[in-house]
Structures are given as structure tokens and as C-alpha cells.
């Protein structure tokens, strides 16, 4: 069974409505550092990507500072995302049912999620977002280091830098696209945002979108509270 989906700190608090812990304080802080870096990177990167967006560099105090700070924010993002990766990778492994869920994606978009198989902690779409982010961030940090002239200009040839900057901009467009999917899903599926703000969702939300995960949580807590007891989210 996909017991990996359930973490020891995820508890169910019965009541009306039922409240389910989804993210610990650590995971949430980690997420928001990553989110802030990604948005700042997108803004500063777009400023250097298209002339019509150069005005965005004013948010960072001008072109020189934008050029200086962008790679450093990238470093923050890389390590911050590494933290998220280590927290979430297991629950994002591709499982049986994910393919079927994806095949029924039209139903999901049409608000007929019931036609798709029950979902664990993450659905196939979320898993794709997770893995695309992971792969793209590795591509972005490595191509970004090649283009970081201030410290690394002497280690690569100009032709390698040209490849790097092209790859970097394509990957950047892709990751902003993935971010749009991520952001839109969080707004469209109401009740999702509290998972990353207060760390908890309602039982109804879990039932509707992650029923298998909810069932596993219930099954786990019925096995006797175990040593973890009723520990609130960190």
C-alpha cells in the first residue's frame, strides 16, 4: 500500500467540519521561501528577457542590481526547493491509478472529479508539477551558473555560454508556465490555500480531492494513536 503518503504528523481532528493536518510549519515556511524566490526570480529574469519588461528591473533598484541579485536569489531557490524535494519526493512517486487519473483529466477540469480514481496525498497533476519543477530547477541552476559571468566566466567557452543562456530562457519560460498551472490550481480548487497557510484542510476537501489519503489517515488513526498521539502540526 501507499503508506508513504501518510506522514506521522498528519492528524485528523474530528468535528464539524473535520480538520485534517496537511503541512507542518517547517514545510510551510520552506514552501513560502521557495515561492517568494521563484516570483522574484521570474520578475528579475523577465526584466532581462524582453525589452518590454525591462521596467520590472525598477522593482529591484535598477538594472545593475537586478543583474547582481538574480543569481543569488537562484541559489536561495535551489537550496530551498531541495528542502521541499526531500520532504515531498516520496509522496510524489508515480503510482498505479495516476495514469488513469490523467486519462480522465477532462472530467477533472469539468468539475467531475468523481469519475477519476481516488487520489492519495497528491494527484497525477500535482505530481507532474512537482517533477517538472524539480527537473527545471536543476536545468536552471546549472545553466544559470554558466551564465553567471561575475564569478564563473572563465570556466566556460562563449559558445557554451550561448547554449546555456538559450536553455536557461527556455527553461525559465517553462517553469513560469508550470507555476501558472500550480497557482491557478490552488485558486480554482477552493479550500487548498489553507493547506499552505495554516497547514490544515477540511475533511470535506480531503474527501473530495484526496480521498485515498483521507482513508489512509483514518485507517492509521484507528490502529490506535500510536506514539505520535495527537500532536498538532509541529
Amino acid at each position: 500500500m501507499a503508506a508513504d503518503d501518510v506522514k506521522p504528523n498528519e492528524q485528523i481532528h474530528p468535528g464539524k467540519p473535520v480538520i485534517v493536518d496537511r503541512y507542518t510549519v517547517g514545510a510551510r515556511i520552506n514552501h513560502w521561501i521557495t515561492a517568494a524566490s521563484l516570483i522574484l526570480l521570474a520578475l528579475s529574469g523577465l526584466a532581462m528577457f524582453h525589452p518590454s519588461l525591462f521596467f520590472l528591473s525598477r522593482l529591484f533598484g535598477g538594472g545593475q542590481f537586478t543583474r547582481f541579485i538574480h543569481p543569488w536569489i537562484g541559489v536561495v531557490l535551489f537550496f530551498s526547493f531541495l528542502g521541499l524535494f526531500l520532504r515531498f519526493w516520496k509522496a510524489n512517486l508515480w503510482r498505479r491509478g495516476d495514469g488513469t487519473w490523467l486519462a480522465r483529466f477532462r472530467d477533472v477540469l469539468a468539475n467531475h472529479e468523481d469519475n477519476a480514481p481516488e487520489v492519495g496525498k497528491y494527484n497525477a497533476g500535482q505530481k507532474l508539477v512537482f517533477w517538472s519543477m524539480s527537473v527545471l530547477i536543476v536545468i536552471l541552476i546549472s545553466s544559470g551558473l554558466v551564465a553567471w559571468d561575475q564569478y564563473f566566466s572563465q570556466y566556460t567557452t562563449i559558445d557554451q555560454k550561448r547554449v546555456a543562456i538559450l536553455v536557461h530562457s527556455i527553461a525559465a519560460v517553462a517553469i513560469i508556465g508550470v507555476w501558472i498551472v500550480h497557482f491557478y490550481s490552488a485558486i480554482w480548487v477552493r479550500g487548498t490555500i489553507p493547506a499552505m497557510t495554516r497547514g490544515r484542510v477540511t475533511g470535506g476537501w480531503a474527501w473530495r480531492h484526496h480521498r485515498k489519503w483521507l482513508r489512509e489517515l483514518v485507517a492509521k488513526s484507528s490502529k490506535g494513536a500510536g506514539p505520535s498521539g495527537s500532536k498538532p502540526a509541529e
Partner: protein
Amino acid sequence: MFPPLPNPSTTETAPRLSEKDLIRRSASTVPAPEQRLTEVAKLIDVSKCIGCKACQTACIEWNDTHPEVGAFAGAFENPPDLTPDMFTLMRYSEWDNPETNELEWLIRKDGCMHCADPGCLKACPAPGAIVQYSNGIVDFVHENCIGCGYCIKGCPFNIPRISKVDHTAYKCTLCSDRVAVGQGPACAKACPTQAIVFGTKDEMKGWAAKRVEDLKSRGFLNAGLYDPPGVGGTHVMYVLHHADQPEIYSGLPKDPRISPLVEAWKGVTKYAGLTVLGVAAGVGLLHHLIMGPNRVSEADEEHAEELTEGDSHGRR
């Protein structure tokens, strides 16, 4: 002998190069100038160069740069490469001519070629950091430069260098400040053998034709003018005794052009990228307008309650 550059007049002259003469401005557009200036060019006759480095010295003097005193690296080049403080550099190569079995000492003054289609300008993301005047001079405007190094990636000749001091890019200006008041570049003024001459582009092509003819009469049958069409021609041209193989002159590119990678990056990627993102955002908005939010229903909450109730007996 080509008529030498006149000495500057003692009366004050108003600069003849201004914003109005721009034909290209990085990351922005400029209105077409009302009047186009005559295209100028610097002609470097490699066959006449004696490698004295007077041009380098004059360049340092005029531009008031302060190159560090370097260390001897076992070669004639000094410094070993172009730097933010050394806009021009004599490059020396010893070439064994396979036809004559003779050693030829090929000396080429390296520096910005002032391309008609400048890759640096195309790559530059900062509005107005790189400009091109209608007389052909490509100039860097330091107060607009953000130091990103994109010009280095755009340049087919590996010319711009970023200063570690003020983090802006530097290269030969073709002495735009001297040309603006009717003077020629400092290097041309200093050259003792007229290996560097300066004038209008047409004059320079005419002068080069004579030099090529002369070289051919002396047995250099492949002598020719280097004015590469891949970058639309340049405003710094070379007379080469072996124009069929420019690479032997310390790696002068045979058919320089803006790298297709740079063209892709600054062309299709830029436009397609923003389009893709715009469409993605639009599709999201449209989906929300049509489908509305995906809300949790009362029934969902009740199901969850049942599931937990049926199970929480005996637990708390």
C-alpha cells in the same frame, strides 16, 4: 601614401554625433534619422604593420585607461588578451607558409569591428546601453549598461569585456568622441607606417583595392579585403595578404555571423515564450469563467465526518 589625418583645429567645434544620429538602440527603438551621416571605416593593413604597439599606447592615452602592469607570459602579446582597460591588442602569430616553406610573422590589431549588424546590440537587454550611429560606429553607453555580459555572447569576434570595477562592458569606441569633432581614431593617428588609416567607408574600400593590387603584384595572390558580409560588413576592415584563410591571423573568423543560438534566444524564444505564458494565463482565466470554482460541498464534509465518526470510537 594615404593623406594623413589633419591636426585638430584650435577653434571649438560642436560635436557632430548625437542622439539624432542613432540608427539602432539596444532593447528599444529609435526613429529613423532625418539625415544619414557618411559611413566611416578604419582600415588595418596587416601587411604594413610592424607590431610596434603605438596604437595600443595611443588607445590607452586617449581613453585614459589604466591597464595593470602584467607579467611576461612568453608571448609578444601584452597584455595577453583584451581587457576592460585594453580596447585594442596586437596579436602575433608565427605561420609556416606551406607553399614557400617560409615563416611569416602575422600581426593583427584586434578590437571591435563595428559590425553593420552588431551581435552585441542584438543581445543587449538594457535599453540604450549599446547604440549604433548612422556613420557605422557601435558604442557602449556605460550609464545604461547593467553588466550582464549578454554582449559577450552576442559578439562573433569575442571583443567586449566586463569591468570588475564598475561592472559595465568595455570595448573600442572607434574614438566616437574624436570622430564627432572631425578627428580620426587615436590609433590611426599614432600609427607610424599607415598600417591604420581612417576615412569614409568608400574611401577605405578604394584604398584597400590599391593595396590589394600592390600585394598581388608582389606575389601575394590571395591578398584581399576583410569586410565580412555575414555581419553586414564592418566599419573596421583588414587588408590581409592571405585573405583566403583569415584564421591564420590569430583566429580571425572566416565567416563571422551572429550565432544562431543568439538569434534563437533573441528571436523566436523571446516572442514564443511570452506568447506561451500569456496563453497559459488566459486559458486559466477562461476556465475559471466557464467552469467556476471547484468548491467543497456540504455532502463532502458529511462524508468526511461519517468516515472519521465511524472510526473514532474509542479514540479520544
